[in-house]
């Protein structure tokens, strides 16, 4: 199977947006407003934090609220000089969206947290654990969620059995992203 035809290709996965499990997107936005746009999306890897952050960015843009998104990960760290530059470029009418806040140095985090109180309209972060900012939502996954996502992506004529997806879900300890990567590989190995 050509990569472009793989039903689990990245661009198709990216088209799947965040699905709140025990709440609604509208309630998330209301809660965010109550928290004065200073909040954390908390959850393990592959639970949808980044996807939700991107969805929030879109929703805020539709409300006319400006944002500045920064992605931090193991391959794209945020050293202190870059952090200071980021803060100097962030304006008072922007909300800073920081994906991977728990991966930046502690001194940088203190700076970001303090600076954005007066020099930005808000600070929304993702983190693996609670405690950095008030938790807006704890992102979780379930086997049913994986099944729902897979059913949208999978070849319609050859559905993946639910028990196989359950096995995959538990193998990856609920990391939906890694489950979908494995499903990509399975499809790539077969025509």
């Amino acid at each position: 199977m050509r990569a472009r035809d793989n039903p689990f290709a990245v661009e198709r996965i990216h088209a799947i947006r965040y699905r709140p499990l025990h709440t609604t997107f509208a309630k998330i936005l209301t809660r965010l407003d109550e928290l004065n746009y200073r909040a954390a999306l908390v959850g393990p890897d592959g639970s949808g934090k980044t996807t939700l952050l991107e969805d929030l960015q879109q929703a805020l843009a539709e409300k006319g609220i400006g944002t500045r998104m920064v992605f931090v990960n193991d391959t794209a760290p945020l050293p202190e000089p870059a952090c200071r530059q980021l803060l100097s470029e962030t304006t008072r009418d922007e909300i800073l969206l920081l994906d991977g806040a728990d991966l930046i140095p502690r001194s940088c985090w203190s700076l970001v947290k303090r600076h954005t109180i007066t020099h930005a309209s808000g600070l929304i972060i993702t983190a693996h654990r609670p405690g950095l900012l008030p938790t807006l939502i704890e992102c979780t996954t379930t086997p049913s969620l994986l099944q729902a996502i897979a059913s949208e992506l999978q070849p319609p004529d050859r559905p993946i059995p639910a028990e196989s997806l359950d096995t995959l879900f538990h193998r990856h300890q609920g990391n939906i992203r890694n489950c979908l990567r494995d499903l990509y590989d399975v499809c790539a190995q077969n025509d």
Partner: protein
Amino acid sequence: MDRLSIVLNEDKTAFAPRDTVQGTIEWNLEKNPRCLDLSLFWYTAGKGTRDVGVTENVRFEEPGSYGTKAFSFTLPDGPYSFSGKLISLIWAVELTCTPGSETVRREIVLSPTGHEVLLGEVPSEGRLPWSSNRAGGNPLESILGARR
């Protein structure tokens, strides 16, 4: 209803390096756009992060709510259009309007043969593991397990 279209001359979609891509864009929009952007670019699709390379971009400022324009792009030497199991590289001509979310894209092939280069053919049983009739065990499990 907003409408954008790209018409390639002779409906040609296969090109060799340094060939010329010629065609016409057409637009019919409810509101006057600020500009139209026509781009020749390639992008990757597949398992990894998407990569993009824009080789040509033409902007039409204040084009009015409807009209047509001819275009001509000269293709570079590469990269060739190709597909493997992990990544595909796809060339396209894309027209977007600003403001608005309207976009239209025409895929083309760039290669010496005029066909997408296919990489890394690996013999397979020709069927998805979860649809196999092999007895015993979870078929997906066996595939995933064998890779680890």
